[in-house]
């Protein structure tokens, strides 16, 4: 089995599900002949036809709204928003329609759609191409928010997202698209949409992260191991539904938690995890909680993006701070 990177894994999942289920439709800007600006939909139009893999006009609100209409008819649209920097016009359709079509019709209609979008900084992209808006989506009742951190995860979670009967926002960290490869069997096995993944076990401190930041978090755990600090690393992956049980259980053992994400800290999703720990796990805490996040500034252009992205050093420093408490 050949190793594939995350974009290829996403492409595999899309192809797998399109072959298996004739209701799956892929739409977006440049998803057809071009195969997506990141190549995530490459060859799909050739294989499944221009009816099921369609280039839309340049209009993000439209892409989301058309997906709602398709989904209400039982299609399973997988829409691509080319970058999350351009996803905001689609928000109205997500908040006011996709997330509540089932709810407001008491189950008469539903909205089984996936909105895929590349996100995050670190690839020297132009302005507006590097933001991390996951917290906004996680605040919307009625949608799921999923972020893969590896090719394997991307394949299994995307399958699950497409099969899920409700809307899923699927955010793909561009920085990971081609960062590393894994063997990904094309076995059609979905991964759960409501579970954190413990990707490294440890007993001294819990590090919770997702998406591209998981990468630096794991590097930090490596560095800490050198000093004898054994970090447990959790890939939160399905921000919504958030699997607090796994996090609480881990922090219950370690007594310390550092949450790492690239989005600005203020009202970021890390706050939700902190808040739940402070509500439900406070008595187990041996040290203040820490968040290591992007600063509360506009994501800078490429010259400064590395200074914006939470670094291994910042994560290690935060762990050192929490380890000071005995």
């Amino acid at each position, binding site marked *: 089995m050949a190793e594939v990177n995350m974009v290829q894994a996403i492409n595999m999942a899309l192809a797998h599900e399109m072959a298996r289920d004739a209701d799956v439709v892929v739409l977006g800007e440049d998803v057809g002949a071009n195969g997506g600006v990141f190549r995530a939909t490459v060859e799909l139009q050739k294989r499944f036809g221009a009816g099921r893999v369609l280039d839309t006009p340049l209009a993000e609100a439209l892409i989301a709204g058309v997906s709602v209409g398709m989904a209400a008819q039982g299609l399973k649209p997988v829409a691509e928003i080319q970058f999350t920097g351009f996803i905001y016009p689609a928000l109205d359709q997500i908040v006011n329609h996709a997330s509540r079509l089932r709810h407001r019709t*008491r189950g008469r209609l539903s909205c089984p759609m996936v909105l895929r979008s590349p996100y995050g900084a670190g690839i020297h992209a132009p302005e507006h191409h590097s933001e991390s808006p996951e917290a906004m989506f996680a605040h919307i009742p009625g949608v799921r928010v999923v972020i893969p951190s590896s090719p394997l995860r991307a394949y299994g979670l995307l399958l699950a997202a497409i099969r899920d009967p409700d809307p899923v926002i699927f955010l793909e960290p561009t920085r990971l698209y081609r960062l590393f490869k894994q063997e990904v069997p094309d076995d059609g096995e979905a991964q759960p949409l409501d579970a954190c993944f413990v990707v490294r076990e440890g007993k001294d401190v819990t590090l919770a992260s997702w998406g591209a930041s998981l990468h630096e978090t794991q590097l930090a755990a490596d560095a800490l191991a050198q000093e004898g600090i054994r970090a447990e690393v959790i890939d939160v992956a399905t921000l919504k539904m958030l699997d607090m049980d796994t996090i609480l259980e881990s922090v219950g053992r370690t007594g310390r938690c550092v949450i790492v994400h690239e989005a600005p800290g203020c009202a970021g999703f890390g706050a939700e995890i902190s808040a739940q720990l402070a509500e439900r796990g406070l008595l187990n805490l041996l040290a203040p909680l820490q968040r290591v996040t992007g600063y509360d500034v506009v994501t800078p252009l490429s010259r400064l993006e590395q200074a914006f992205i939470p670094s291994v050093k910042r994560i290690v420093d935060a762990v050192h701070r929490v380890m000071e408490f005995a």
Partner: protein
Amino acid sequence: MTVVASFEIEYLQFLDQLGRVSQPLPGFARDPRALVPLYRAMVLARTFDTKAVALQRTGQIGTYASSLGQEAVGVGTVGALRPEDVFLPSYRESGGLLLRGVTMEEMLLYWGGDERGSDFRVPRQDFPICVPVGSQASHAAGVAYAFMLRRQARVAVCMLGDGATSKGDFYEAINFAGVRALPAVFVVCNNEWAISVPRALQSAAKTLAQKAIAAGIQGVQVDGNDVIAVRFAVERALDQARDGGGPSLIEALTYRLGDHTTADDSSRYRDAEEVKQRWAHEPIGRLRNHLVEQGAWGKNEEEALHAECTERVQKAVDAYLAVPQPPPEAMFDYLFAQLPRPLQPQRTAAAQESGHG
């Protein structure tokens, strides 16, 4: 000067303001008896609207948007639909909804603040009332795309207001429908007002029908107080769409005779005189004049119809008032196909809270 493109916007009317035939009637309208169901539907709508406003005034439902004066647009439109088509209404469509099979009880539930009102027992695939203005236009495009992909001879029919045509949503949807030649019909109910904003402040376009030109689709303007014209134009557009001829935009010229909603007081921003004048154009009297003139309607029928409508509406009101409140935990139902685990404690808490409350 070279001209590379030229366009015309057609205007359609069959019955003039007084109900006189102003041009040869289309086939379906030649037998006046065939028009009686449309007449009955308009009267039922008006009876229902009147009652709904009264219910709001007495605190028995919430804010309500009456279609007073515009009945011909919804009724004419839906009169042309087939059951298998999908209707995507705005919030001011009692006539159209009733004709689709939505019950008055459901409508009262909805406006009374109960989600069960959108669980239509009959047009199962129709969209619920759309409150965010214009946002249903792209749903119509998506529904139509599904029809096309599955080679179904069905059409998605979207109704929206003059104000809605100012939303990017509307434009993006008709533009996409044009590109893909989708089986979709967009009916703009131009009642000259968007709350307090007059038509002239929505757009400098002479007609709203000409917005179709931007999307490269058919656009036509009809007298929206002439139910025959509305029905004819919509049927023609449906036929075209069903045959793969692509989408259309129909602007129906009418007038909102009432307040925007029960929360509105239109005397703040428009002249009573204007409203008075526009009563002379309203659609129900116009069709009645025609029917009477054709010998298909009389005083007895009229009285019987009013009695029947009043009774049907009252029955619906009684049924509505008898519907028990939903339990608080109902707000967790249908949020997802299955309630996710993290939400279960919240649901339990909500249920318990009400137990104490």
